[in-house]
């Protein structure tokens, strides 16, 4: 999440959900929290009951809107215009938190004289090369003043592998020139003012389709509820990330929260709600192609990463906490390669694969569609229904030689070869599909890392039935067999696999909670994996107490440095802790939050520069002069004994270069970044661009869309023309509480299917009347990629908007259906396209165009649903007398 990482230093939600109850105002935007995160939504409700104002800004009136004090309808894809308007309102009316902003942000920092803003270039920043469709690779014009510009790399610009330092928003000079009086026209504050000047309330209303009054009411609410005594929180989810400008939307929220002084403070922050139970975990110990565990960059073939020394030098970040990066890298190699990793062989560095291109999901599936990918493992993922332009994903799957699907049910991605809207002829599909049944979470042990970076362990309750096995079992035994197959190989490329430490089996037989022995042979012990992730000293195998124990001399091993401390000593798995701490919302003994059990990041900012709480009402972490340390309700996200008065001596590096009043310790200058001199590819300041498909011209600049947007050329991925009159309706995909994602975990469950049994499309009565669509009858939505059908849900929860003086219609399409399962229906993602944000290759599913009509698809062949499973099972509860059987059993 570079949106948060570039602004604050870490790409993770800045607080914890329980803390939302401390908010005086919560702005929910790009999130349908009540429907997608109903359990966490109890905390906004608690805040509301304590008098907080809840605001929902969304294209679509949802169950979240129903619970908020104010709902503002906006056009899908106009979020930066709305947030830019809020930033402009705060600046124009001088509502920003002066002491906070001057002390903790880069507001006073001077920007290079070469910087040219979008105001002058009509929507482009300086340095854009139209032919290459890219900015100057070094983004020189975006830097701070006097930033020494020594290119460390010759990465060809067409290669999407950025350096680690670029990703972090690296600057060489941690104390760039500044003007605390804010008089200099090149200081960040003044650039910010001029950049957002045109985002007036009139302009916001015209672009977003809300009224000026609605916008102004939101602006007043967030201003009134920010400052010393009050805090406002922002909640977002994939309604922000799934845009071609997703990262910049989140950046805009970061700017707003910094200006209002809401970061690092109770009831403030930016809560990034994740799309899956352990998505945070899967970026921490990543399934991403370009990161090693703990956000360490994957070595790249096209950069000067030939030796470990060169790699470390190249990716070195001298200031802030990342200065310790070489310790984490060496400890990771020791964890992977064990005794085979020695100082002589660079701790096995040469065995780590190098990347040379963008191997994220979208480009990989595009290559697969072209037949360039031969085999694929799918663990709990359903691209045939859940990925953007699902049709092209199904085509890609049909071009594989082999596919392994590990899931509970035969999902779309397992039966695409004989089912689906293309009605494929099984005889012509060459893909060999291995469908392997998976264990459910209660049938295996392990941890979830949730949206607030909290690791929570779950034990195994029962053995999985029949041939179902945990993913850990599968990967472990696959690894063992591969090691056998390659045994004895002298090839350099095989040495990584052969030297991998790979021994996680139970030391004693696995015992189930009832006391019986598990029937599963060779189940790995997930706690042994967690111990390796935590780290240990190599000589005696003793667990390390945290990442500050890690060394660069090979004497420590650690599988993921940010998780270090989760298993600090024998018998103490902190992820398993379930002790409540009444009176302290941080609940420090419930689970384990990375880093170092800190529940709120950047919490040094909850105190003023001198170390005192900004107000009694909002106290959280403060400097105790007597004890000479930081103390409070949470683990300080700061060096515990660094006094507020500390100033870095000239030339200092690492944490020594972070001053005692600089809360953003992962940033080289310790400041929150209003302006990002590096770290984002598409500009140092968020700028409103229209979605790639939009029926509206960009009213702010003649640059219509994100100039850096990632496009993938394919005949199956056509994009509507600019302002294409064939597709005047704006569509957004939407989530229902009753189903989970593309449905693999819910459409095979009759208790959930009965609650939302059929695909439908929501539209306003006005649009329905224009197209002669009757409520409850069939309708079709189509664009240049596909056509889908569903029942028409005509509701005032969607309303026509007035955008740029004319009426614009929006529809909301639930994305939960597909052709497998007990209920079947059209796939919303057949309509979405593969275009992506340039920073993270995230697709744009939340805003695209289409047209609607009454009736059904011409191709009336549909796949039959599975019969409703005999559920409940009718198995009587064991060891239970008749009178105590579940009530339903007597039916």
């Amino acid at each position: 999440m570079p949106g948060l990482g570039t602004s604050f230093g870490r790409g993770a939600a800045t607080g914890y959900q329980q803390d939302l109850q401390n908010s005086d105002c919560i702005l929910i935007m790009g999130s349908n929290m009540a429907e997608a995160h109903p359990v966490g939504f109890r905390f906004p409700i608690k805040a509301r009951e304590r008098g907080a104002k809840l605001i929902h800004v969304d294209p679509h009136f949802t169950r979240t809107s129903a619970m908020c004090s104010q709902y503002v309808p906006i056009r899908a894809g106009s979020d930066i215009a709305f947030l830019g308007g809020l930033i402009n309102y705060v600046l124009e009316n001088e509502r920003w938190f002066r002491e906070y902003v001057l002390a903790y942000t880069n507001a006073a920092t001077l920007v290079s004289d070469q910087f040219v803003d979008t105001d002058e270039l009509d929507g482009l920043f300086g340095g854009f090369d139209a032919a290459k469709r890219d900015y100057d690779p070094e983004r020189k014009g975006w830097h701070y003043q006097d930033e020494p510009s020594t290119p460390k790399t010759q990465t060809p610009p067409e290669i999407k592998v950025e350096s680690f330092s670029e990703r972090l928003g690296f600057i060489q000079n941690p104390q760039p020139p500044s003007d605390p009086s804010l008089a200099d026209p090149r200081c960040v504050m003044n650039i910010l003012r001029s950049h957002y000047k045109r985002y007036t309330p009139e302009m916001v209303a015209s672009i977003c389709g809300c009224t000026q009054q609605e916008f102004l009411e939101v602006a007043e609410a967030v201003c009134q509820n920010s400052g010393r005594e009050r805090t406002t929180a922002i909640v977002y989810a994939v309604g922000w990330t799934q845009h071609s400008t997703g990262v910049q939307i989140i950046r805009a929220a970061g700017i707003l929260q910094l200006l209002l002084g809401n970061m690092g403070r109770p009831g403030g922050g930016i809560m990034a709600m994740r799309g899956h139970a352990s998505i945070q975990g899967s970026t921490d110990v990543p399934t991403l192609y370009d990161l090693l565990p703990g956000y360490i960059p994957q070595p790249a073939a096209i950069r000067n990463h030939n030796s470990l020394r060169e790699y470390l030098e190249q990716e070195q970040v001298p200031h802030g906490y990342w200065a310790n990066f070489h310790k984490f890298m060496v400890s990771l190699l020791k964890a992977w390669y064990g005794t085979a990793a020695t100082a002589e062989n660079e701790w096995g560095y040469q065995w780590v694969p190098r990347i040379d291109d963008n191997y994220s999901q979208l480009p990989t599936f595009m290559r697969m569609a072209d037949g360039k990918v031969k085999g694929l493992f799918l663990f709990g993922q359903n691209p045939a229904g859940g990925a953007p332009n699902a049709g092209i994903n199904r085509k890609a799957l049909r071009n594989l030689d082999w596919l392994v699907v590990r899931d509970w049910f035969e999902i779309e991605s397992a039966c695409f070869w004989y089912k689906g809207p293309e009605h494929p002829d099984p005889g012509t599909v060459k893909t060999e599909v291995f469908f392997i049944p998976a264990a459910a979470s209660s049938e295996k042990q392990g941890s979830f890392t949730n949206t607030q970076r909290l690791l929570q362990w779950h034990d195994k309750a029962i053995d999985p039935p029949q041939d179902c096995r945990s993913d850990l079992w599968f990967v472990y035994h696959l690894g063992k067999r591969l090691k056998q197959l390659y045994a004895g190989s002298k090839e350099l490329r095989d040495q990584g696999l052969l030297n991998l430490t790979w021994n996680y089996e139970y030391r004693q037989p696995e015992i189930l909670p009832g006391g019986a022995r598990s029937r599963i042979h060779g189940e790995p012990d997930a706690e042994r994996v967690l111990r390796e992730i935590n780290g240990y000293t190599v000589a005696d195998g003793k667990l390390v107490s945290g990442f500050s124990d890690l060394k660069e001399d090979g004497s420590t091993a650690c599988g993921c440095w940010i998780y270090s401390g989760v298993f600090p000593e024998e018998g103490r798995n902190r992820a398993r802790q379930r002790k409540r701490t009444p009176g302290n919302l941080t609940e420090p003994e419930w689970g384990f939050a990375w880093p170092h059990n800190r529940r709120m990041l950047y919490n040094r900012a909850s105190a003023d520069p001198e170390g005192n709480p900004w107000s009694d009402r909002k106290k959280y972490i403060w400097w105790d002069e007597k004890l000479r340390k930081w103390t409070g309700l949470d683990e300080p996200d700061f060096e515990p004994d660094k006094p507020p008065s500390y100033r870095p001596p000239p030339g200092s590096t690492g944490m020594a270069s972070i001053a005692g009043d600089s809360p953003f310790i992962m940033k080289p200058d310790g400041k929150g970044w209003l302006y990002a001199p590096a770290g984002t590819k598409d500009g140092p300041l968020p700028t409103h661009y229209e979605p790639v498909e939009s029926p509206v011209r960009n009213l702010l600049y003649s640059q219509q869309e994100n100039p850096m947007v990632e496009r993938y050329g394919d005949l199956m991925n056509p994009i509507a023309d600019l302002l294409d009159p064939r597709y005047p309706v704006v569509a957004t995909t939407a989530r229902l509480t009753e189903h989970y994602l593309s449905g693999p975990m819910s459409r095979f469950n009759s208790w959930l299917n009965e609650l939302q049994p059929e695909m439908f499309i929501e539209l306003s009565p006005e649009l329905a009347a224009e197209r002669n669509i009757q409520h409850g009858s069939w309708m079709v939505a189509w664009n240049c990629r596909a056509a889908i059908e569903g029942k028409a849900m005509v509701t005032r929860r969607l309303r026509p908007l007035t955008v740029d003086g004319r009426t614009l219609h929006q529809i909301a399409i639930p994305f939960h259906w597909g052709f497998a399962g007990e209920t079947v229906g059209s796939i919303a993602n057949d309509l979405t396209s593969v275009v992506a944000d340039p920073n993270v290759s995230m697709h744009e599913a939340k805003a695209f165009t289409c047209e609607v009509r009454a009736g059904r698809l011409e191709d009336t062949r549909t796949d039959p649903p599975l019969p409703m499973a005999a559920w409940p099972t009718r198995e009587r509860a064991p060891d239970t007398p008749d009178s105590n059987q579940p009530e339903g059993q007597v039916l």
Partner: protein
Amino acid sequence: MIDVLLSAFERPAPPAAQPETGFFTDTTLCIGCKACEVACKQWNQLPADGFHWTGNSYDNTSMLSDTSWRHVAFVEQFDSGAHANRWLMMSDVCKHCAQAPCEEACPTGSILYNEFGNVYVQQDICNGCGYCVAACPFGVLDRNRSDGRAHKCTLCYDRQKDGMQPACAKACPTASIQFGPIEELRERAKARVEQLHARGEGDAYLYGAEPAGEYSALNSFFLLKDQPSVYNLPDAPRRPSAHLKTNYLVSFATAIGLAVASAMLLAAGDRSDADGG
């Protein structure tokens, strides 16, 4: 020997009475997630009712039934004058009436008040006559097609016996469904209404917290924001037994009237025969 034979006719001592329990469902906190419906079905192992998309907002289970003991109602109120732009949600359930018509109508004694003061259908006694179905003014009870007997919310009798709260209340993420001793709930509910009134939400009121008209208090009562009928609840529920005396009198009077009328008609017929003869 005689003792053993006689013991078969002895009634075991009933379980000791416990503090009366019930539900307070605060609809202003309901987010319509339907976790209560699913938790109820899972705990009680009730089957799905079938897949029927109704188009009635997000309500696809439509009503309480023999296999749906919680039901979330959705009411969309948009641009309709006074109540612009709101989406009401309410989790409905058996009302566990203080004086329950189903219990009064049950001829077998299958329906009783258990030790927690909850209305409970004993499945091994129910003979499926269906009188309770007709007696309930809320449409809670329903007979099952396969076993013919009446089923409804048990207020998780089995869980309560083990000191646990009902599954729906446990699953509710926002404390819209609150379970506890009924007196405590009524106090809490009153305070809640006052709080809402103070906040300017003057339309909040309690439904069933106290006896109203001919009807008793409900031990599962609600905080509503609009007319009961908007949530598909009767504005003034009727208790059949309240009309017994009048109905008996009317029937009796009708019987006498009819008898008299018949006698007169017969007598008149005799006369006409004689006249026309």
